[in-house]
């Protein structure tokens, strides 16, 4: 019996040890899209690495809303404080959840777009279900066109960066 009790004890001990080691350094996680690691405390400095959302970083120090961090691969640089959080973000958007195709039945193959929730920031216009709703409830064509136009609007990430830069906002503040 002893070995059976010994295994959980070792596992618990290892977990506690890991937790203690982990708490010695402050950790943060990248929580926003399009974050990058900079060589210095400025958005104008060279980019050391592009960081994906959820990346764990070890913080060395923070100054004027910029934090000096190290990536899991050992790269060191600066990241704007607004880009990180002290808790990891939720990333799995659709895991294990039911789709409208399942709920309404029979539509999953015809209308569910595989990339509907990706970060490409483009939507291919009004969905067939919403169009069917508009038809059955007699919504004016003007409303459908307006929504279709809105959904087709594209907002590229580089335009957002340029927009923030022009406004001297956040990491582009001087």
């Amino acid at each position, binding site marked *: 019996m002893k070995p059976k009790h010994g295994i959980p004890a070792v596992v618990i001990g290892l977990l506690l040890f890991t937790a203690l080691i982990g708490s010695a350094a402050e950790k943060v996680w990248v929580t926003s899209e399009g974050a990058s690691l900079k060589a210095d405390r400025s958005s104008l400095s060279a980019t050391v690495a592009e960081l994906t959302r959820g990346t764990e970083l070890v913080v060395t120090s923070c100054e004027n809303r910029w934090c000096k961090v190290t990536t899991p691969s050992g790269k060191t640089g600066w990241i704007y404080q607004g880009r990180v959080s002290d808790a990891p973000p939720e*990333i799995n958007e659709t895991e294990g959840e039911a789709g409208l195709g399942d*709920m309404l039945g029979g539509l999953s193959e015809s209308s569910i777009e595989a990339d509907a*929730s990706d970060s490409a920031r483009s939507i291919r216009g009004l*969905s067939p279900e919403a169009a069917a*709703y508009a038809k059955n*409830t007699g*919504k004016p064509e003007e409303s459908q066109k307006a*929504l279709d136009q809105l959904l087709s609007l594209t907002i590229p990430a580089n335009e957002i960066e340029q927009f923030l830069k*022009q406004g001297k*906002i956040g990491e582009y503040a001087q």
Partner: protein
Amino acid sequence: MFKEKTRRSEASILEGRRTFLKLAGPFAILLACPAYALDLLRIVDPEGKNKDIQKARQALDGIGSIAQSLKGVDYQTERTIGETLALEGFQRYGMPVKDDGLQKYVNLVGNAVARNGIRPDIPYRFVVVKSEIYNAFSCPGGIIFVSSRLIGSMQDEAELACVLSHEVGHVSHKHALQSIRRAKFLEGAGKIGTLNMEGERGENYRAMIGDLQTVLFDKGLDKGMEYEADAAGMDYAYRTGYDPSGLIRVLEMLERNQSTAVQKGSWFSTHPPLPNRLEKCRQLMERYPDASEMATVKDRFASSCKVLKGASLR
């Protein structure tokens, strides 16, 4: 005889314990992840010959079904519900202001703050509608409306960023869906069979949309959800680099205009009382000691939204 009864009783207890232990494992796994528990049982007994495992599978199927209906919907479903509500929103509040520059500007501000929210990996779309009502609301999936009156009464980009962040907060926390989940509409929708918008299932869907309209356009969300969205609004705006007190300035502006404004379907009627919101937001400012150093971007806001300053557009 007594001993025999005792032996039978002991045997019965032991059998009960064995059955309990057989079922306890799968149920313990179910608590962590019901789908894995069912998969595990299918692997252990693929042909369904073991009666105990069959019983466990039946129980898990039932509980898993309940769990599934409460778990929510995927993004595609959410977006479709949002699109449907957006169609109703145009009917209720007005059509988009015909100014591509303004619409693009609002989408840039909105998407800039949205990527610093807790749900940046879905596409957000923002639309300014021609309306006299002080209002903004978000449809599930990320379609966000803001009225020309509300933007036209703002003073800078930080104020706009905070209001759009507030709405992004609602989408991020799936507040609207939570509201109808509590009302069990999605549980009913989960049992719908073949799609037919003209049949009973279509009626169920339209009924669900009707209830969502009541929540978003008339009754409003729970107070707690609004306070959560206020906090999110200030946080996302601050993370982006905007002055989070922009939300306080908007609420103060609304307070000044409340007595003369249209109440029905506005932020006045669908949101908690302004003094309560202001009090909570002012308390939250303690989190942002450097707020005065953050961007407000007054000039760009003024030039981008000048079309809304004309009385004819409001």
